[in-house]
């Protein structure tokens, strides 16, 4: 069959709108996931056995089961258990936030672990109270060290978000399928959608390497 990409031009705004939807819920999920992930990482370094175990199981569950199933579950099972109605958008944001919280917490945890105990000693020797220590010494270093990892998480979440098309959310992938159904030319559409994801994802991964090279030079004394 002959490939013909020209017709895609007619759909450029539609594809962009799909991308816009994708970016909206990915951004929301990222922000929520960032906060939730940091809280989780503190839970996971907790000395309280119950908090530690629960948060560990939570993180492992969301990292170890297919995101497709998580989405499905939040979409169709959560309303049954909670007996509430959630809009598609809300459901997607909840599902992706829960997932991104889990992967973000791992990045934070690794960063927290990489801060030498001598930094704590130095804080005590300088008479810094615990809150100052956490806010002004530990947190900034943890965030700096976690940044490359967090950025990689942005890329993975952005990519994984293509799955929400499978539960009927009109994101980039879904719009692509919709167009393909309409014009019945799936090869071109699929390729174009892949390229759009790439066009966003690639600069992001480059940014990761850039930040990694620059930032870590400062932080690693």
């Amino acid at each position, binding site marked *: 069959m002959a490939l013909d990409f020209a017709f895609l031009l007619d759909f450029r705004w539609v594809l962009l709108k799909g991308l816009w939807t994708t970016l909206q819920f990915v951004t929301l999920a990222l922000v929520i996931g960032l906060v939730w992930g940091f809280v989780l990482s503190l839970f996971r370094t907790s000395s309280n056995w119950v908090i530690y175990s629960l948060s560990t199981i939570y993180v492992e569950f969301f*990292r170890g089961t297919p995101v497709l*199933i998580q989405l499905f579950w939040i979409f169709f099972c959560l309303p049954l258990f909670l007996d509430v109605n959630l809009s598609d958008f809300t459901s997607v944001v909840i599902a992706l936030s829960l997932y991104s919280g889990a992967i973000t917490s791992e990045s934070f945890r690794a960063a927290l672990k990489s801060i030498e105990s001598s930094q704590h000693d130095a804080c005590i020797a300088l008479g810094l109270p615990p809150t100052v220590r956490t806010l002004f010494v530990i947190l900034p270093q943890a965030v700096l060290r976690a940044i490359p990892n967090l950025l990689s998480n942005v890329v993975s979440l952005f990519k994984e978000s293509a799955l929400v098309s499978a539960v009927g959310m009109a994101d980039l992938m879904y719009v692509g399928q919709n167009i393909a159904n309409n014009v019945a030319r799936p*090869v071109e559409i699929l390729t174009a959608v*892949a390229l759009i994801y790439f066009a966003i994802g690639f600069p992001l991964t480059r940014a990761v390497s850039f930040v990694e090279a620059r930032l870590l030079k400062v932080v690693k004394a």
Partner: protein
Amino acid sequence: MNYDFSWFHVERAFPTLLEGLWVTLELTLWANIIGLVLGFIVAIGMMSKIKVITWPLTLYIEFFRCTPALIQLVWFFFCVPILFNVWWSAQFMGLLALGLNLAAFNSEAYRAAIQAIPESHTDASTALGLNGLQRIFFVILPQALLLAMPVLITNGIGIFQQSALVALISVEDLMYQGRYLSSQTFRPIETLTLVALMYFAVSFPVSLTVTYLERRTKRLLAT
């Protein structure tokens, strides 16, 4: 709650789900073998100073890192035959896509690990009269493997999780069987809950083992 749970069908379907799990495990295993070996070769290639080698490798890595795995699978399954005129089975194509995806991510893990090996080890190898290949095999590879192991295993579990996507190209893995059963029995909620738990039952112990191994290698490699 306004829903009657019925586990009867699901119970009957359990053996089928186990068959699916077996396929998932096989896929994961082979994808990991491809990912571990090819990933290292790519990482070594990326260390090269020759642009003709690094450019295509960069393109390969970035393509797989920057596009959704869903698209990669579908693209491999449908577009490769159209564009290159080759027909391999769904299972093989799924495996290939997953393996190449994992290799791209693993190569980055290896690269970071290789960079963490002190440069002086290269000098020491030369001083000991080891040639380039011997150095790679006996000095760099084992250390890179040990240093990168936590990330490699995390990636490996990630592929276990992501392998669910092959269901969309009709590879009969756990996800496929789950979806099939749920459309057969019309008990999607029970079936998919069970499927999620089955995935978790595999990934959780593996992940705990990783944490343990991570602690051990750290101690071993501490200098």
